[in-house]
């Protein structure tokens, strides 16, 4: 019944099936929405956060989706600035994923602050020394950029595109996309870095604190690198998941492998520096504040296995896999490496958020445990559901994949 809205020359599942799927996802969304309303009404006392864990699942989730959404800016940068034309096959998808990730993260942030009504103070009374201010500015600006990048895609919807004005508008926005890609790349690089910087400047938290270059601690650069080392491959994973779910080919494997190569290269650079950084931290910084590597870990929940999983299994291993052409060109191995990579970066964000503040710095203090409760999980679920909804609608009605027609002939 909504066939007239489909992009040209592609097949989509029946409306009933689609409605069923949307209903399924919307249920998650509504559950999260309920939790969100509860949080706004009663305050974050309803969450599992506490005095020791001011930051928890939400911040981890934010950092992770922002890192994984980095495919948008980095691919845009490669496509529009470095003119790697092959990426046009996947660029639309990166934009949508980026948009979902950033807008979702912003929504989570408004829930996360104690006084959502004062959220705008970040602009009104900015503290230029705070990495968080930089994050607030860059993240909102970049979200605007992503909207600007996403709008022409919407305007290209078959029926909308029939309106001449919208058609021309979309086109002209496309023409100037390089400019936005440039701005986006700049903004995104900065706030990815600032997110790392947020932790790197915490003098009181030996797990996170790093020296650095000028005002930027090393984590600033490591976060940028890890984001670009995982964002592109996350897009590939999303694309592949969509292919599996819809049964249609959306992007050719060559492009995917290219994305894998890009991510792999950046991940290799990242993991090289990450290992160096960790080594220096454990051997120079920690002793300088009187602490030992062992003191950074505790039991199983805060065990060393986390760091080794992050750096070796989900860092070094996928890096090698992705830069080795023979492995990369095998779909199964490519996706495996991609999943490891994404887990690694998520784990990294978790460790910097939760482990970093769990460590008792005062010798008479004790380790505390943090368990996110249902409100936190369900609101994160809401963001995921929101993403799935946006993605589903985009896939069904927008010409996201330029290759789709050719690949499914």
């Amino acid at each position, binding site marked *: 019944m909504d066939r007239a809205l489909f992009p040209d020359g592609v097949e989509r599942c029946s409306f009933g099936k689609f409605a069923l799927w949307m209903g399924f996802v919307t249920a998650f969304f509504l559950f999260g929405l309920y939790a969100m309303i509860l949080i706004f009404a009663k305050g974050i006392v309803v969450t599992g956060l506490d005095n020791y864990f001011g930051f928890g699942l939400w911040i981890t989730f934010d950092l992770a989706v922002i890192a994984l959404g980095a495919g948008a800016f980095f691919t845009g940068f490669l496509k529009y600035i470095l003119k790697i034309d092959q990426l046009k096959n996947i660029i639309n998808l990166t934009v949508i994923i980026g948009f979902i990730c950033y807008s979702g993260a912003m929504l989570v942030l408004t829930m996360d602050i104690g006084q959502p009504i004062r959220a705008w103070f970040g602009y009104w009374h900015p503290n230029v020394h705070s990495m968080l201010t930089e994050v607030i500015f860059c993240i909102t600006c970049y979200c605007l950029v992503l909207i600007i990048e996403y709008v022409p895609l919407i305007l290209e919807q078959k029926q909308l595109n029939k309106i*001449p*004005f919208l*058609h*021309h508008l979309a*086109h*002209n926005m496309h*023409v100037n996309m390089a400019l936005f890609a440039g701005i986006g790349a700049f903004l995104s690089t900065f706030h990815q870095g600032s997110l790392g910087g947020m932790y790197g400047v915490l003098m009181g938290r030996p797990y996170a604190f790093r020296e650095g270059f000028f005002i930027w601690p090393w984590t600033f650069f490591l976060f940028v690198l890890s984001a670009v080392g995982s964002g592109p491959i996350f897009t590939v994973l999303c694309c592949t998941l969509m292919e599996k779910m819809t049964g249609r080919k959306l992007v050719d494997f060559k492009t995917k492998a290219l994305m894998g190569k890009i991510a792999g290269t950046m991940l290799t650079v990242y993991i090289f520096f990450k290992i160096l950084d960790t080594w220096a931290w454990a051997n120079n910084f920690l002793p300088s504040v009187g602490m030992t590597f062992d003191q950074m870990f505790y039991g199983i929940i805060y065990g060393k296995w986390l760091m080794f999983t992050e750096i070796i299994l989900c860092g070094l291993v996928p890096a090698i896999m992705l830069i080795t052409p023979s492995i990369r060109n095998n779909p199964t191995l490519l996706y495996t490496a991609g999943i490891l990579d994404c887990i690694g970066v998520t784990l990294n964000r978790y460790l910097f958020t939760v482990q970093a503040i769990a460590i008792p710095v005062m010798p008479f203090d004790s380790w505390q445990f943090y368990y996110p409760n249902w409100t936190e999980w369900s609101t994160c679920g809401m963001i995921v559901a929101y993403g799935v909804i946006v993605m589903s609608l985009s896939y069904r009605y927008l010409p996201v994949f330029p290759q789709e027609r050719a690949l499914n002939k």
Partner: protein
Amino acid sequence: MKTQFSVAKFDQKLQERWGEVMEEKKQCKGCGGALPFVIGFVAAVIAGWVLFPDLIYSKKTQPIRFSHKVHQEQGMECSSCHTFRDDGSFAGLPNNESCMQCHADVIGTDPAEVAYVEKYAKTGKEVPWLIYQYQPDNVYFSHKAHESFECKSCHPDVGKTDTPPVYYENRLSGYSKQTMKMWQCERCHAENGVSNACHVCHK
């Protein structure tokens, strides 16, 4: 399909559209060009400056028509009633105890005085004066530190008034119209080389 398109063509389209608009405009005699815009603009400006203040502020009058003038004519200074205590804190508005030093019983002919004596002095209830410059709890203001300034450099000059000024209460924020804003404090501090550190004024 859109590859042939150019900016020039886009411009052309826009101009065509603009032409249509002009066409319509010609037909619409009653619209009178920019006039409606001007009317709307002027109306809004008038509404905003004249009606809005009435809308956002509710007017209140003091519970007792206190005449500063009469008291001043008796040779009283501001500081006769608005005193500093021994610990350097400022007493602000006088309480019954102070007022009743003279007004325990009616001594004049003013009905306001009679009202005061009947309603407050005799019952022991404090007068719920409206404070024109009431600050929120998070503000610490030291009158002692500002002693070198004249009262009227911040407060309404009520010394010569027979009737206290109308008290305007902001319906949204709940504060008086004359409540000094933070930027005013900060500006004066900056001009006088006084610290604008947060805790200088906040608690």
